[in-house]
C-alpha cells in the first residue's frame, strides 16, 4: 500500500481539496468526540442561536464513545461508532464550519451534499479496532456534557490516528466504489 497521508488538525480547504477517496491517512492533533446525544444538544444550540461548547470551525469530530480508562491508560478502548445515526445532525454542523468527521459506515445524501458544498471530509476508521486506536490518543479531556458519560464531548490529542478517506468533495464514496475492483486495488 502507498504511504499514508499525514494530516494535521484543524483542517483547511486546501488540505481537503487534495484528499481523494480510498487514501490512507494518519490524523494528528486535536479531535473531538461526539455521538447521538451530544449532536442532538449541539444542533439544538445552533437552532436557538446559542454558542456551541467548542468552536467547530476547521475541527474534526470523531463519532466515538470510549470505554473508561484503566489506571495507567490515557483512555479506554476507543473505536468508531456507526455514522448514519449522526446524519440528521451533521449537515448543520458542516454548514457552521465543521471540516472533518471520523466514523464508520455509509452517510446520507444530505451529508454528502453538505460535504461537497461546504468542503468537508468524511474519514472511515475500522470498526472494532478499539484497543489499537486507543493507543493513538495521547491526551483527553471531557469539555462538555459530562452527564452523558461515554457520550460526553471529549477533546483528544491524537498521534497518527489511522483512517481512510471515505467521502471526498468530488463525489467519491469508499462504500459505493467497492465493486470497482481495479479502482480500489489502485487506491490501496
Amino acid at each position, binding site marked *: *500500500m502507498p504511504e499514508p497521508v499525514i494530516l494535521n488538525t484543524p483542517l483547511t480547504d486546501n488540505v481537503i481539496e487534495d484528499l481523494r477517496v480510498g487514501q490512507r491517512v494518519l490524523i494528528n492533533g486535536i479531535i473531538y468526540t461526539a455521538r447521538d446525544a451530544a449532536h442532538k444538544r449541539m444542533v439544538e444550540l445552533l437552532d436557538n442561536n446559542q454558542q456551541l461548547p467548542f468552536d467547530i470551525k476547521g475541527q474534526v469530530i470523531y463519532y466515538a464513545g470510549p470505554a*473508561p480508562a484503566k489506571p495507567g491508560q490515557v483512555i479506554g478502548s476507543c*473505536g468508531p461508532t456507526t455514522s448514519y445515526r449522526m446524519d440528521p445532525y451533521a449537515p448543520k454542523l458542516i454548514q457552521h464550519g465543521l471540516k472533518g468527521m471520523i466514523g464508520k459506515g455509509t452517510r446520507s445524501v444530505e451529508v454528502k451534499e453538505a460535504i461537497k458544498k461546504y468542503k468537508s471530509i468524511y474519514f472511515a476508521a475500522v*470498526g472494532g479496532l*478499539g484497543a489499537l486506536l486507543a493507543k493513538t490518543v495521547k491526551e483527553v479531556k471531557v469539555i462538555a456534557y459530562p452527564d452523558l458519560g*461515554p457520550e460526553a464531548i471529549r477533546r483528544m490529542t491524537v498521534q497518527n490516528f489511522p483512517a481512510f478517506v471515505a467521502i471526498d468533495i468530488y463525489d467519491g464514496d*469508499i462504500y459505493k466504489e467497492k465493486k470497482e475492483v481495479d479502482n*480500489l486495488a489502485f487506491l*490501496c
Partner: protein
Amino acid sequence: MREIHATKIIDIVSKLCQEANYNLGEDVIQALKKACESETKPIARDVLQQLIDNASLAKSENIPMCQDCGVAVVFVYVGQDIHVVGGDITKAVNEGVKKGYNEGYLRKSMVKNPIIERINTEDNTPAVIHYRIIPGDKLKIIFTPKGAGSENMSSLKMMKPADGVEGIKKFVLQKVSNAGPNPCPPIVLGIGIGGNFEKAAILAKESLLRPINQHNPDPKIASLEKEILNEVNLLDIGPAGFGGKTTALAVNIETYPCHIGSLPVALNINCHAARHKEVII
C-alpha cells in the same frame, strides 16, 4: 437438591463479562487469519490483520477489544435439580454485570428508558436474561455482550410458507447488503427459522453462540448455511465494508417446528467481535 449460592453467580457473571470483552475466541481469530490469507485486495488484508492485532492487544492487556462492550446478554440454563440460595437469581446476574463492568473498565451503554430521557444506568444493567430449565443439577451461564452496530442491522420477517428457501435467502442477502459496512464486517449471521415471532428471534441469537465452522447437525440445514455463506461473500462488502471476499465468517441456522400457516425468519447479525464465554457450575 444441589444448592448454589447467589454470590457464586455474581462472581462468575462478573468474570464472564470481563473475559468475553477482553478475550476473543480462538475460533474467531483462526477464521480471521484464514480470511486474511485468502483475501487478494491489500486493503482487505490490511483491515483483517489490524483486527487480529487488536484482538491480541486486548487479550494481552486485559482491555476491551471494542469500546462497545454491549448489552449484557445472558443465557442461563438452570438444571431442574438445583436450588439457588442466598438471593434472587436475576438480581445475582445483574449484580454480576454491575461488578464486571465496573471493575473491568467496560463501557456502560444501557439507558433507563428507551424513548423518554434516555439516561444511562451507569452500570450496564439491566442485563437481557434468557432462562431455560434443563434436566440435571448443573447451572450453565453464557455471557454474550452485543454491540449496537450489528444489533441495529438485525431483522425479523414473518414469511409465507410459499416463500421457502429461496425467500429466506433473498431476505438474508437483502438485509446483509443493505447493512453494508455498518455492522462491522466480517460478520457472523445468526438465523432463526420457525417457532413463532419471539422464538425465531431467540433461535437467531442462540445460534450466534456456536463456534465458527460448527454447522447445524442436520446436513440439509448445514448445506443451506454453506450456500448462504458463499452468496453473502460474493456481495463484495468485505472487511470494514471496503470490499473483499470476507463479508461473513459464518452463517449459523437454528430451526424449530412452526405453525402450518407460518414461516418466521429472524436474522441476528453479529460483528467480527463475536464475543461469548460460558461457565458450567
